[in-house]
């Protein structure tokens, strides 16, 4: 196991750019789905060519719909809910959930989206509070939390978008956590 783990670690450390050069061209055209690493792959430390990167593509529809969800939840225009607000929420959720690699991803996206300016939506504190409660204990959701978002100025369509985003993050960070755990227990060295 030791030798294999070392080799794996070394491969994982090769940068994406170098890794793409190492890939045989056929490998990039044979797959029915985009073969590049997506947000989940990068957060889980998977690169094209890794067994787990390929195993994920067994469920190509899930991979595509997960990436499309990430895109729509953050970028689809929503009245009263900017992309920078949503990236702040995502960063907060991943930080309190201990999802470090995803937190770095959202931190980078936020820096890009806001160009260094902190988002200033007056509803942001209420959004972050809602997101934190929902992330740490879904039982804490109640009608009062919805009302506090309404008082902060969010309409029903914005509340649906925010709830979808926070709920999606719970899914996304668990997929990443599971894949990272699988990397730590490769198939051919199981007891």
């Amino acid at each position, binding site marked *: 196991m030791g030798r294999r783990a070392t080799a794996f670690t070394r491969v994982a450390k090769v940068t994406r750019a170098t890794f793409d050069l190492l890939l045989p061209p056929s490998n990039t055209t044979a797959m029915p789905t985009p073969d590049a690493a997506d947000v989940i792959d990068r957060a889980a430390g998977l690169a094209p060519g890794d067994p787990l990167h390929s195993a994920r593509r067994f469920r190509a*529809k*899930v991979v595509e719909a997960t990436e499309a969800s990430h895109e729509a939840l953050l970028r689809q225009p*929503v009245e009263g809910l900017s992309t920078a607000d949503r990236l702040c929420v995502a960063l907060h959720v991943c930080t309190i959930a201990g999802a470090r690699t995803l937190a770095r991803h959202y931190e980078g996206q936020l820096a890009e989206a806001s160009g260094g300016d902190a988002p200033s939506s007056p509803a942001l504190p209420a959004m972050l509070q809602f997101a934190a409660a929902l992330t740490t204990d879904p039982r804490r959701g109640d009608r009062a939390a919805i009302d506090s978002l309404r008082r902060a100025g969010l309409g*029903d369509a914005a509340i649906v978008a925010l709830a979808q985003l926070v709920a999606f993050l719970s*899914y996304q960070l668990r997929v990443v956590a599971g894949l990272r755990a699988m990397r730590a*227990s490769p198939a051919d060295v199981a007891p």
Partner: protein
Amino acid sequence: MIRRNGFTDETLEWRSWLEPLQLAAASPLQLEVLDESHPQSRTSPYYLTLAHQPLMLRHRSAAYNAIMYAPGGLPRAERELGAMVVSVTNGCVYCTSVHAQRFEQLARRSDTVEQVFADPASAGTSERERAIARFAIALTLRPDELGGDDIAPLRAIGMSDEEIIDLLHAVAIFGWANRLMQNLGEPEGVDR
């Protein structure tokens, strides 16, 4: 019929705390996405609420349907077992009722359901079911601490990478589904 610890396998209704979309006011895109999502979505307060953001609902439904219904890989009853264990762990009474029924339909038995309602941590009528239930709880409650030791029992019962990923998806997407059900409304027809 099974009732225990506030959970049931009876059919429940769900009431939205927001204003569900009125069908008469729905755009063509909203109607299209509703029909892609679920056979009864046009009369479901849950789907009509989520339809306020049709593109977000479209991708969610595509992920959900592929995770729970696609052929091959992990047997569907075992994906439903994962969904039910997560729903009980998160205290989502509505999702638990739906996925207890689905498990019973697919597995043609309800003994596991009784065990999950009583205590998900020790539930399972076989080593395989117990490993699935324990993994579902671990990923639900402590994703930040998950490690190789949590995967090893799944390998030990012979699961392939693809099957483990199917289970991982089923468990994770109920982290998503439970949170929507529990934060945008509440079940009806149940004593809370």
